[in-house]
């Protein structure tokens, strides 16, 4: 086993990896940018190294600085978490050259799956179904031609990308020029690579993904599926395992397909094969994420496994102690991503200082958080604050338990997605499991603020008492008037997309 693992990440996932290391008796090194000096992962790790200014490209994406930090701290392995450098094969290679173990797949597997175009070709050869699409596109006219061939609607995607950035759905030829420019621009800023390709858009698709684990001896097993259909801007908000649309037979089929995909690229470590399931029950390979997923806890809850510990043990050369027959799901788990965004204004980012925070607890609840009361959410990184996971004996219990936990959870001072999640948990279409990636567009009431009539009276009473106390305090200081309305009330920006 390793002596010391450096975590090349921040926020809740850095904490998650630190926890796994602690349980394995391995020391940890946190890296942090100047904007993250007060972040929780720095408080949890054994050692800390500052790796540069706030902008990710100068810190969390700066390969030489992270390698140097590992050398200074004496780390013999690096866990990349998700995002940042986790799917960067040059980083994995640099680790190897420095004699540090990269906790993840081999460089060759990352390369094979990292290029979206090459991975589609590889999957086709391995007999895995892929959505019809195009090679990288030279310009909007080229894009329009390919779109005509596969048929509208189509989805523009960044060749080097992931996480929904650089993606645009195009429904008609007239929209192509402006949306192509947007996708290309976003791909360039996000990945430094503006190549864009397109795929046929599968109608009312479910986002289904299969978790795999493979060891260095070629043994690969799958851990069932997760459904992550509730998304905004192609980024996931709520995930669950198992999918309400998938039975044991289908699970075995798509599991075998995922194992084939992993073996086709010589995969080792934890990975996820993402698929689209069409209305008609057809499955298409989308991409393989060669890293740990944000939503891995729902699989952990249902299968009673620790995927992060498994990754570290595989990286240390241990074989998988399980066979496929050992992998049996139990109950149901749901994850809500608690994000610093305002769902009622088109999910506009809402950074700021958390004035007060209370985490939920009780049976079946897991809280993976990177924040605390008094913490200022930096504007430089993604808006994920924490992941709330609820396990239940069945889907209904998990959803009811999640609603209960969301009622206990309090994050004051900034806008968050808590109220949105609470609406989803009791929504009839969600409870019926009628999910697809257009779920939020189909149910706009989920992202609309409602006045809660039963709350109005108690809210006025509470606000009046708070106002009264504030004026009393001010008058004790000799101030006779409360401050007038701030810009918060007068100038309300409205964001969308």
């Amino acid at each position: 086993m390793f002596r010391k693992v450096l975590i090349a990440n921040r926020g809740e996932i850095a904490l998650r990896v630190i926890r796994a290391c602690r349980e394995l008796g391995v020391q940890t090194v946190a890296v942090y940018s100047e904007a993250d000096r007060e972040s929780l992962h720095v408080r949890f790790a054994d050692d800390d190294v500052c790796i540069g200014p706030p902008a990710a490209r100068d810190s969390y994406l700066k390969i030489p600085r992270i390698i140097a930090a590992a050398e200074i701290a004496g780390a013999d392995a690096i866990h990349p978490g998700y995002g940042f450098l986790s799917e960067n094969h040059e980083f994995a290679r640099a680790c190897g050259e420095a004699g540090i173990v990269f906790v993840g797949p081999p460089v060759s597997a990352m390369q094979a799956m990292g290029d979206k175009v090459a991975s589609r070709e590889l999957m086709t050869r391995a007999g895995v179904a892929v959505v019809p699409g195009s090679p990288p596109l030279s310009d909007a006219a080229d894009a329009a031609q390919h779109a005509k061939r596969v048929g509208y609607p189509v989805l523009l995607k960044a060749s080097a990308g992931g996480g929904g950035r650089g993606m645009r759905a195009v429904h008609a030829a007239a929209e192509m020029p402006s949306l192509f420019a947007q996708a290309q621009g976003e791909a360039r800023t996000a990945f430094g690579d503006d190549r864009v390709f397109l795929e046929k858009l599968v109608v009312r698709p479910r986002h289904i993904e299969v978790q795999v684990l493979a060891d260095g001896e070629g043994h690969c097993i799958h851990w069932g599926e997760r459904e992550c259909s509730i998304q905004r801007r192609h980024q996931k908000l709520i995930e669950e395992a198992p999918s309400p649309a998938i039975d044991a037979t289908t699970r075995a089929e798509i599991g075998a397909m995922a194992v084939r995909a992993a073996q086709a690229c010589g995969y080792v470590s934890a990975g996820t094969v993402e698929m689209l399931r069409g209305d008609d029950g057809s499955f298409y390979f989308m991409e393989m994420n060669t890293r740990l997923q944000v939503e891995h806890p729902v699989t952990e809850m249902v299968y009673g496994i620790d995927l992060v510990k498994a990754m570290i043990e595989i990286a240390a050369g241990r074989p998988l102690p399980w066979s496929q027959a050992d992998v049996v799901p139990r109950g149901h788990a749901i994850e809500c991503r608690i994000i610093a965004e305002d769902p009622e204004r088109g999910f506009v980012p809402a950074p700021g200082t958390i004035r007060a925070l209370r985490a939920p607890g009780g049976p079946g609840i897991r809280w993976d958080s990177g924040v605390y009361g008094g913490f200022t959410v930096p504007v430089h990184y993604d808006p994920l604050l924490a992941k709330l996971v609820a396990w239940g004996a069945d889907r209904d219990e998990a959803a009811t338990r999640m609603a209960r936990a969301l009622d206990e959870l309090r994050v004051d001072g900034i806008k968050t997605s808590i109220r949105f999640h609470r609406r989803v948990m009791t929504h009839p279409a969600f409870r019926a499991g009628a999910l697809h990636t257009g779920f939020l567009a189909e149910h706009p009431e989920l992202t609309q603020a409602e006045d809660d009539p039963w709350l109005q009276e108690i809210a006025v009473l509470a606000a009046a008492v708070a106002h009264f106390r504030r004026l009393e305090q001010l008058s004790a200081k000799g101030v006779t008037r409360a401050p007038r309305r701030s810009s918060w009330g007068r100038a309300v920006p409205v964001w969308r997309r």
Partner: protein
Amino acid sequence: MKFAARTGETHHEVLVTREDGAYVVTLDGTPHRVDARKLEADFYSILFEGRSYEVSVEAVGGRYLVRHGAHEQVVELADASREGRDELHRKGGPEEIVSVMPGKVVRLLVTPGQEVQAGQGLIVVEAMKMENEIASPRAGRVAEVAVTSGQTVESGAKLVVLE
């Protein structure tokens, strides 16, 4: 103390006094005895008509964001003078669109003098790893575009003025 209050489109008259360590809040003529204790941070424990409520009350200017469980309600309060009541009714006039976060202006979608519809894109700002299109909150005419493409903006910076 007497206040004018607003929740959504509903206006209320509120009178607050202290009595025996509790508060008496007269809401639209009906007195209620409210036992309110401020606990940690913004959290209040409120005993009201035999029920216990845990609410948090966050003050932003004259607006209060009251949370109970996952539910939220905005309550605006002003003093009960004519001026205070008018303030709660005020609408229209020039409107400044400000940036809610630091970021970089990547594109301008409108020019001064242009008529815009509600929901029409005004400016694209990059922040938190995303390009965000700032849409017009209402129909109107662009009086001023206060930033240029490529400019870095701070939170609260004026972007566009609508009239």
